[in-house]
């Protein structure tokens, strides 16, 4: 089997009642047959190999969770084909459940009132895990994270981070070939995020588990994913490795300029006028070129330059001739700005693909 997950031209439509406004409208709605079709997922195709960690990205409401729910078999696609582990998930949901693990960041599959270890024992019986596999898995867990001290703690008394950690371990417990993680690091602090990323990476490596991860946190993407799939408004925008994406945007570099000695002490208006003056200076000489201007948190003026159009040094020289520059910093474009650029402008991306 070459691929663990195959999606071919998958569509998912929802029928939603057109609601009317006001009290009168509510009564109308009781008898209304006025439905509209919402296309949550539109012609999505992808193939995922065993052992891959795929980052599935997109803005809120892009159709990520819907796709995941179709892959797990909870939702049936309106059109198209989905094969997971060689089976059609929605037709074999219960059987498919044995071969997948899921974590929905906002919900817990653990027994709320019971100590963690009881939840693990229950899952052991529910998934029919053998004593030896169960023991080995716990030994592996204990070597990766400090989970032992959480065993006797009821889930409802756990912090969000501890709960998420436990939920991820629970999803991997029956050693499924595929694990779906829907926003696993949502709402966690920096150190917990790092812990969870390391854990996911280690489990993926140790067990060769395929991981499908949705997230809004670019840190997750940078730390975990070799490949990313981007979706927006139900349509797939990008499916390739991260390096490729960065190299496409690699011609972009950010020039940060400090125009005042202490820009952090400037007021909001003053900062804006500084940025405007930089903008006018750059534009008067390079009117036909594209730039993106913005302010950094510390009050530096940031200019995003496409070096295939104009060299960064040239721009800097020009600025320096016209105004006083206290300090200069160069930055490679981050994954975060790449993704932001993609969301903002899907057209460019089609060229990248």
């Amino acid at each position, binding site marked *: 089997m070459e691929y663990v997950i195959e999606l071919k031209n998958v569509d998912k439509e929802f029928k939603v009642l057109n609601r009317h406004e006001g009290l009168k409208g509510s009564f109308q709605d009781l008898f209304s047959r006025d439905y509209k079709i919402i296309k949550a997922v539109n012609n999505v195709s992808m193939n995922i190999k065993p052992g891959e960690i795929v980052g599935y990205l997109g803005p809120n409401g892009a159709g990520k969770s819907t796709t995941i729910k179709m892959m797990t078999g909870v939702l049936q696609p309106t059109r198209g084909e989905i094969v997971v582990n060689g089976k059609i998930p929605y037709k074999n949901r*219960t059987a498919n459940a044995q071969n997948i693990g899921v974590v929905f960041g906002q919900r817990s599959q653990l027994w709320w*009132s019971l100590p963690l270890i009881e939840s693990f024992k229950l899952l052991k019986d529910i998934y029919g895990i053998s004593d030896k596999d169960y023991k080995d898995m716990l030994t592996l867990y204990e070597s990766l994270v400090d989970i032992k001290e959480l065993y006797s703690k009821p889930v409802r008394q756990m912090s969000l981070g501890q709960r998420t950690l436990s939920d991820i371990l629970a999803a991997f417990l029956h050693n499924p070939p595929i694990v779906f993680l829907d926003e696993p690091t949502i709402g966690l602090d920096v150190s917990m995020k790092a812990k969870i990323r390391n854990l996911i990476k280690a489990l993926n490596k140790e067990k060769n588990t395929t991981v499908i991860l949705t997230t809004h946190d670019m840190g997750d993407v940078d730390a975990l994913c070799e490949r990313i799939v981007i979706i927006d408004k139900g349509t797939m925008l990008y499916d390739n490795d991260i390096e490729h994406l960065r190299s496409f945007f690699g011609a972009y570099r950010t020039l940060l300029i400090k125009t005042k000695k202490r820009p952090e002490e400037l007021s909001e208006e003053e900062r804006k006028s500084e940025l405007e003056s930089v903008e006018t200076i750059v534009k008067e000489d390079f009117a036909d070129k594209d730039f993106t201007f913005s302010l950094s948190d510390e009050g530096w003026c940031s200019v995003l330059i496409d070096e295939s159009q104009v060299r960064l040094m040239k721009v800097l020289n020009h600025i320096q001739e016209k105004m006083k520059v206290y300090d200069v910093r160069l930055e490679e474009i981050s994954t975060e700005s790449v993704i932001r650029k993609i969301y903002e402008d899907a057209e460019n991306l089609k060229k990248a693909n």
Partner: protein
Amino acid sequence: MRIKAYGALVRASVMDFMQFRLAAFVMLLGNIIYLIVIYNLWRAIYASVDNATINGMSFNDTMIYLVLASAQFTFMEAYLVWEMGRSIQSGKIVLNLLKPISYDKYLLFGIEGGNLCAFVVTFIPTFIIVQIITKGAIHMGVNLLFYLAAALFGMIINFAIDFFVGTICLYTESTWGINIMKEVVVLFLSGATVPLAFFPGTLKKIAMFLPFHAIYNTPLTFLTKGEELGLGESFIMLGEQILWAVVLLIIGKIFWKLSERVITVNGG
């Protein structure tokens, strides 16, 4: 292996029950208040007629029946419709659907343990107290075994009805009204609130024709009329229960299968 999985679900619900010990006491307290109310209500009803018996039931018979019915309610009612409605609304149902056990079995075995505990904690003490106060009004014989079997099937029938009604929540996405309606219909037609003996002729016939009486009336009959029932009659009553249980479970399963498709779990 499957048996082990079901066992795990029963275990989980037993442990869950134990975690909320306080809830069991509150339940008991609520039950006592209910009993005080119906005691006075029926006292007034019997005081208003000249006969010592109404429809062949003395005041004592009626009280014994209603006390046991309310005790049976505490272990049979699992508030499954609420549970299903809540998990549909919150979208938590996804996690239950993604267990390698079909949803109906997941729910059934998930409430079984709690029911079992409630049986031990509330029904058995109530039974003993009734026996002591009435100086052994309940016949102690093979009818007790019949009661246990009948209570089990009654529980399954109750579950099947709840599961069916809970499935309707997939369409309505609201629970309150549906559940209230279900509770009124089931508790009334099953003879949990008023003994079926008090029903007027036609209504009683209709009630005996429906499955609900098999939840409360049938098991309780084994306790209150234990002496009079012959073996043959007892087995016929059990057989009717089994038939209803099977039919309703199948209907519930088919309805669920058809309805699964409408699941549009919250969140995008």
